[in-house]
């Protein structure tokens, strides 16, 4: 399975989904003109990634720790819906017995971003770690 790497633009975030390091991240501003077109490939990639986790667990008895880091500066309301879809998939993996953690990063002055993360966390079971950007 290949990594999914997308460079940031003025209105779309940087995305890095790497199946080798199992470190995933999305950072920057998210206000894509067509949110579906931007986020569907990420969702499809993650859905496929579940089979990697399954393969490692069943064949090598390895419990891979997966950290998904959100370091967003801004996201619009339709992006919130897609972020929820990503988090729901991670939640499903976590409930399926995989070691998944969400790392939610925000600027120290950005209470709104912190609160958004807390709101997402309340709706899900997957563990969230909150971190102030240094």
């Amino acid at each position, binding site marked *: 399975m290949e990594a999914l790497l997308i460079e940031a633009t003025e*209105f779309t975030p940087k995305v890095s989904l790497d199946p080798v390091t199992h470190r995933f991240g999305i950072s920057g501003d998210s206000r894509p003109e067509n949110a579906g077109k931007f986020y569907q490939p990420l969702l499809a990639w993650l859905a496929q990634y579940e089979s990697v986790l399954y393969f490692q667990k069943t064949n090598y008895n390895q419990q891979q720790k997966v950290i998904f880091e959100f370091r967003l500066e*801004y996201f*619009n*309301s*339709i992006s919130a*819906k897609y972020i929820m879809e990503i988090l729901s998939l991670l939640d499903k993996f976590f409930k399926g017995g995989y070691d998944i953690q969400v790392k939610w990063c925000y600027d120290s002055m950005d209470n709104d971003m912190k609160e958004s993360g807390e709101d997402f966390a309340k709706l899900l079971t997957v563990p969230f770690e909150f971190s102030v950007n240094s």
Partner: protein
Amino acid sequence: MPMTTSDKTIFVNELYNIMSENQIFMTYLGDITPDITNSLIKAVKYDNSNFTHGPAAKKKIYKVIVESLENVCKHAVRLEKELRPAIFLIGKNEDAYHVITGNYLYQEEIPPFNKLLGEINTLSREEIKARYNNILLNGEISDKDGAGLGLLDILLKSNGKLDYEFIHIQDNLSFYVLKVKVDA
């Protein structure tokens, strides 16, 4: 009678005075396309002279501006034969910013939309959040790339009620005005 150059100079002067007195620092009249939306949002993003209440207030107002413009961009009536421009303006006073949008809507869209606006305008902050979360978890994304979260987001950032009006223009068209106040 068309304006002469001299008339226009006087008018610009008057407009300058009206905008300065009312602290209206950004206006746009025209078709709000995705490209225009991007340009207006960029102008807001890089404007540090008019957003004078610190980064937290700027971020809050930025969110309201983005959602307001995206709503106009997605829903405003665009007629090929006849220009039906939308209007967008931002003003401020000592303790609040005001974001105003106006755009044409087809008459048939107004009853359900008016009902929705009336409904969400009566909700408490907790009820708005509950509705927002319910859409996040269970809502569907429409073919216009919308999920119904934008107006709720605007309400949450404005800490108040939406001030809106529908002005009937002709048989099948109304002009919809939305005024949002965001405390600085």
